[in-house]
């Protein structure tokens, strides 16, 4: 399997996304914003459509759209007076509607949009891998440097704010990293399933972990493991890689729940 270059590329890009998606997802889940990845996928879809319309790299435009969407959600949430998940709904539905309008304007419904919606990891090129590596490693490094600050704003947002911690800035960093993850994972698992790779490993890890740090570590392990196992099964069983990866991540939940239950 690894003699084939497209599989080596798929494993390289997938491994980075397998680390990044649960690492960013960890902070989203802890802030009870599990669905933000899903919504940013909707906004990124508008970016893909705009890229097709303008004949510019759909991934790059999707990245810009997702970042703008993430910033808009944070601003609406903190300064716009919207409550609960209204900010998410507002930005995401507008993003999806914009995507539909742009796609139909471009006459692009006949373009292979499926590769963005459901992933196309087996068509990943070296330039895709370098982009995923460069931005993915930069995002992971950012998480590493800001880990303590991000944890602080998660465990007690108001207490940290009163103590003078720049909580709004840290929240914005998480939102932008989520947008970046969506754009980078788009080719691997697809826009419709990208949020799953951010959320499912974290949810599963929470069943067996004993601390925040261990939750993050186990989630990243499940994320990478799901990508490697999912890709391997997809290769030998001739299945859709994106769906198989997410099914592997989903299977981790009952396994962890049983292990966690047995330990208690």
């Amino acid at each position, binding site marked *: 399997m690894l003699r084939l270059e497209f599989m080596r590329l798929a494993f390289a890009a997938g491994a980075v996304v397998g680390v990044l998606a649960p690492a960013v997802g*960890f902070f989203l*889940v*802890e*802030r*009870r914003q599990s669905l933000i990845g899903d919504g940013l996928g909707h906004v990124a879809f508008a970016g893909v459509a705009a890229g097709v319309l303008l004949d510019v790299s759909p991934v790059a435009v999707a990245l810009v759209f997702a970042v703008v969407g993430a910033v808009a959600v944070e601003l609406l949430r903190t300064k716009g007076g919207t409550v609960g998940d209204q900010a998410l709904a507002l930005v995401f539905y507008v993003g999806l509607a914009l995507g539909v309008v742009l796609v139909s304007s471009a006459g692009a419904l006949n373009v292979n949009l499926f590769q963005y919606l459901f992933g196309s990891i087996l068509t990943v090129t070296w330039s895709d891998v370098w982009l995923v590596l460069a931005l993915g490693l930069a995002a992971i490094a950012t998480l590493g*440097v*800001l880990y*303590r*600050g991000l*944890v*602080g704003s*998660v*465990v*007690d947002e*108001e*207490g*940290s*704010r*009163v*103590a*003078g*911690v*720049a909580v709004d800035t*840290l929240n914005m960093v998480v939102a932008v990293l989520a947008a970046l993850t969506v754009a980078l994972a788009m080719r691997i698992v697809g826009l419709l399933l990208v949020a799953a790779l951010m959320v499912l490993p*974290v*949810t599963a*890890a*929470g069943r067996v*972990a*004993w*601390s*925040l*740090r*261990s*939750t993050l570590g186990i989630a990243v392990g499940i994320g990478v493991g799901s990508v490697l196992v999912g890709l391997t099964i997809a290769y030998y069983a001739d299945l859709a890689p994106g769906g198989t990866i997410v099914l592997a991540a989903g299977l981790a939940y009952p396994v962890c729940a049983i292990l966690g239950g047995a330990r208690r």
Partner: protein
Amino acid sequence: MTMVAAIELEHVSFAYRPGVPVLADVTLRVSEGEFLAVAGPNGGGKTTLLRLVLGLERASVGEVRVFGRPAGRRDRSRRIGYLPQRAGAGGEAPVTVRELVSAGRLAPSGIFGPLRRADREVVDSAIARVGLADRATAPLRTLSGGLRQRAFIAKALACEPSLLVLDEPTTGVDAESQESLAVLLERLRRDLGVTILYVSHEFGAVEHVVERLVLVRGGIVFDGPPADLPAVWHDPSHDHAQGH
């Protein structure tokens, strides 16, 4: 020379909606090192008063100062440790006592990189001070309500505060743990010289340790030692505390 007060409210009024004041013409001065309990009925404005002190709300009229500076303006030498109402730690993942308390060290140590050794020592000392040294690696969700509140107090102490603000700290805590929480707070005030603002509708737990009690009901309706409180206002849930 007049000593700078820890907290000063001068003719403060506040309304969330125009024409519906929550607090009207409140004047209050809390000296450094004082242990003040603020009580009153739900909707009486005590949490609003606390939020004004923390700088989370701005007074519609009047002035709120903390250690001589307008509330909300950061003072690196005089930090505020805050225990929010029904404090919970994040989402579903297990947070250990040490992870929680370390988060309280963010303001003095900055948000970048790992904690330095000196900061870790302050964290361990805060954990020990609330009597949780042997539970430092325990997930919060395995602790009782009373021990969990102690962990949050340790988090508030980790920034080495000059002012400790607690919002309804006895919610979900059994009567025995409430009493030991009151004793702990009084010891912290004595040992660290920290000013304590304790806001709760149940003041019985601290009635025997605070020097001063303020009852808030749209304004201040009582301000003095708990012993001077008219009998009709005593908290019956802690009658045994009267004998202390």
